[in-house]
């Protein structure tokens, strides 16, 4: 047993040198290819957005009049209002998502909740409903003469078309991010940790507040950041609801400069950079919160059996879960279904106006609905695998404190920043960057005008999700585990593959499901960069709406939601089988 392997990474001295080299080469290679992939997927498109922001004529290949428009844009009153509204909306949705998601997650993770896996599944559904579809569903339900008024005589139009209304609709879409991250974190922390505090005299609430919640901080902060980023980059909901009462955010400002005559690409790029700056600030805040203390809790086998019984509280808790599920999932789905079943919108919810005509038209595939579904599912799967793998690679290099006692690997900060950039960029801006980059005449070959450009767009837009999930998972892995593997003779690669990867695999898988779902229904970027002649689910539904076939669009939306929910069901039930003891 000679050589440095036995000595352990903490040892210093001349005998370490060869081992360092052998152990350092692989990570170096891995880091190199990770950076290369990030440069292609993220850095280059964003570089072109930055170029566009500086050089207004870059689209025509000219560097004339740099920054000619900077002062006008930044000094305009719109810019200040939109920035303020963006921050208010982001903060509002984060707070509301925590208020809904954390208590539910604590109940789910720390008590013996009846039908726990079913609730997990139900809370996936808000995520499966494309936000612009859900928003339309809410409008059809709550506006005067909407479904609610047709059924009960009550209309909540003024409440919906207001700031709290936007926050509520977006929270119902976003809170599952907090719910899943928090319940995973609480499960990993387990009841045993708080049991220890209860031995020392803390009550259950105090134990949760003082022990479990602080230990879950990295995961909570990461999910908060995701919700903030999702909110400030979301287009559909603020565009549709905000337009009704003059509430403009940066994303709607970007879309306006990209759609209204005269098209203003430089302004759109500048506003995007402002949005990215907001998101990076949030990212810095999240890092500060997450790394303030050591939250390593996965010290070996997770304490699965240590959940508490609910005793007499079972019924109220179930009512709470059912109520949240109904409002976040049931109502929008019913509104979508009602529209899909309606022959005409003006006919309302009367028996002779309802029928399966729209579904029959969709399944007859005369307008290409089925091929759009196929295209989107294929693209979603490819994007999920690529984003998952790349996300794992990024998290591995940036988050693993591993054997070097807290020092971060060189290049980690760069990788981290690159993987975060798309978080704040609305899809339409990523699309713009991709066109500017990949449509350069000098390129010998290009993915532009092929399906690959959509994969690039989806991976770029969604990469922060697997990165955040996996980084949080890595941060919960006790470094002693990897050290133990190394002491027992595993090389760094082997230790990573056999010890770290299995421990973070559930998080990576969850993130990949998320990427699949969001990619499969993405609209805003798809509409701009979809190769000619290709329809995705999002662009297909949009086209139906545009032609006034609201019912057919909603029928496809409903089928897509059902199908994207089935994929996680299959995967979750497979995971459940794996988790079964014995």
């Amino acid at each position: 047993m000679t050589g440095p392997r036995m000595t352990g990474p903490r040892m210093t001295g001349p005998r370490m040198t060869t081992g360092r080299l052998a152990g350092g080469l692989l990570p170096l290679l891995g880091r190199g290819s990770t950076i290369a992939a990030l440069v292609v997927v993220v850095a280059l498109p964003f570089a072109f957005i930055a170029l566009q922001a500086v050089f207004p004529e870059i689209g025509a290949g000219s560097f004339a009049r740099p920054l000619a428009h900077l002062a006008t844009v930044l000094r305009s009153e719109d810019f200040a209002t939109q920035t303020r509204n963006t921050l208010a909306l982001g903060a509002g949705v984060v707070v509301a998502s925590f208020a809904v998601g954390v208590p539910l997650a604590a109940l789910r993770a720390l008590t013996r909740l009846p039908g726990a896996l079913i609730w997990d599944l139900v809370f996936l559904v808000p995520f499966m409903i494309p936000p612009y579809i859900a928003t339309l569903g809410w409008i059809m339900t709550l506006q005067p003469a909407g479904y609610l008024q047709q059924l009960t005589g009550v209309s909540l139009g003024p409440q919906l078309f207001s700031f709290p209304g936007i926050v509520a609709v977006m929270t119902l879409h976003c809170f599952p991010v907090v719910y899943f991250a928090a319940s995973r974190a609480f499960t990993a922390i387990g009841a045993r940790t708080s049991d220890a505090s209860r031995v020392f005299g803390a009550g259950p609430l105090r134990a949760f507040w003082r022990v479990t919640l602080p230990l879950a901080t990295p995961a909570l902060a990461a999910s908060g950041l995701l919700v903030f980023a999702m909110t400030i980059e979301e287009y559909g909901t603020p565009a549709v609801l905000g337009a009704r009462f003059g509430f403009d955010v940066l994303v709607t400002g970007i879309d306006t400069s990209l759609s209204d005559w005269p098209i203003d690409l430089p302004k759109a790029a500048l506003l995007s950079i402002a949005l990215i700056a907001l998101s990076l600030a949030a990212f810095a805040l999240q890092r500060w919160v997450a790394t303030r203390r050591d939250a390593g809790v996965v010290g070996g086998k997770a304490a699965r059996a240590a959940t508490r019984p609910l005793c007499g509280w079972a019924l109220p808790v179930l009512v709470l879960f059912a109520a949240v599920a109904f409002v976040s999932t049931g109502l929008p789905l019913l509104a979508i279904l009602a529209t899909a079943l309606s022959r005409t919108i003006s006919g309302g919810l009367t028996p002779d106006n309802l029928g399966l005509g729209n579904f029959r038209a969709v399944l007859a595939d005369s307008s290409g609905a089925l091929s759009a579904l196929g295209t989107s599912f294929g693209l979603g799967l490819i994007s999920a695998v690529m984003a998952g793998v790349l996300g794992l690679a990024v998290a591995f290099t940036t988050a693993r404190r591993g054997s070097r006692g807290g020092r971060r690997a060189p290049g980690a900060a760069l990788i981290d920043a690159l993987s975060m950039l798309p978080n704040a960029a609305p899809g339409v801006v990523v699309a713009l960057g991709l066109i500017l980059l990949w449509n350069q005449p000098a390129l010998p070959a290009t993915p532009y005008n092929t399906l690959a450009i959509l994969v690039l767009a989806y991976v770029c837009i969604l990469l922060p999700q697997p990165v955040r999930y996996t980084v949080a998972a890595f941060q919960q892995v006790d470094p002693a585990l990897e050290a133990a593997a190394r002491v027992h003779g595993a090389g760094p690669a082997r230790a990573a593959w056999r010890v770290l990867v299995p421990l973070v695999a559930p998080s990576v898988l969850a993130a990949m499901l998320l990427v699949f779902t969001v990619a499969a229904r993405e609209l805003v970027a798809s509409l701009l960069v979809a190769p000619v002649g290709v329809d995705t689910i999002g662009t297909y539904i949009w086209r139906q709406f545009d032609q006034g076939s609201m019912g057919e669009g909603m029928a496809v939306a409903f089928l897509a939601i059902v199908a994207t929910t089935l994929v996680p069901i299959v995967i979750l039930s497979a995971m459940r089988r794996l988790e079964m003891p014995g």
Partner: protein
Amino acid sequence: MKRLSLLIATTALTAAASAAATAARADITVYTAGPGGLAKALVQGFTKESGIKVNLYQATTGKVMARLKAEQSNPQADVVISASWGTATSFAKQGLLMPYTSPNAAKVPDFLKTDTAVAEGVSALAIAWNPKSGTPRPTDWSDLAKPYYKDKVTMPDPAQSGSAFELVAALDGNGQQGLFGKLHGNGVLVAGANKAALNPVLQGAKAAVFGAVDYISMAAKAKGESVDVIFPESGTVVAPRPMMILKSTTHADEAKKFVDYVLSDAGQAAVAKVYLMPARTDVPAKRPTISELKLLKLDSEGAQAKRAAILGDFAKAMGK
């Protein structure tokens, strides 16, 4: 890690290669603003007749323009169809268009064609009114400022819709400047582009659209929706949809053939089928045509030159 990165690279390459293989087939590329059904019908008819394949990109006028602008250094489109005549004027000024006059354009009236653009079809703005809304049937723009329609009217945003801008400019120029202030006092909702304005009217949340794009509402009515299209007594504006060949095209002959097809009997019949007015006066329409509509006098070029001022006045009238 290395294996993972290799996997990324191979997946990306495979996806790119397979996709590249599918994209190389078509012969010309057409970018068009809606309606999608019409675009598809035109492309199918054209390919059947000429054997020339067409790559179709269909979106809103705004998205089509954004894509064209981003692609400026390496234009992909051969033919562009927009829903706003302003596009044709502006592109011609920038020297982006190839002059072409189709032999089939002989029966297209002069004001619907230039050296570099010709209308595919024409729409007009109207009042779209829901007869089940419990309001009296409006007959003119000014009716919608009356108390019956309090909080019951929507209007496309002239800043976002080219045709709504022309309507505002035309009403301004015809002595109706005061109308927008009255509409604002009556609680008119100015929201979004054309599409967004119609749905609240269909469900009954609102009673009427001030300045609806007529063919969309006519198609909705044909599907059984409760909506009437009313052309106001004092007149309205029309929105011709220009069709242009980009100068950068490398398939000029095929692109010209496409324009010819859209202006052929079959092409114009397809245009008429979606309730647009055909550009050619000798092809029958399924709806009132320009000669039957009363038009407001409008100097389009002059209005465009004063665009910022007109929009500013409008915003002020709307209390912004």
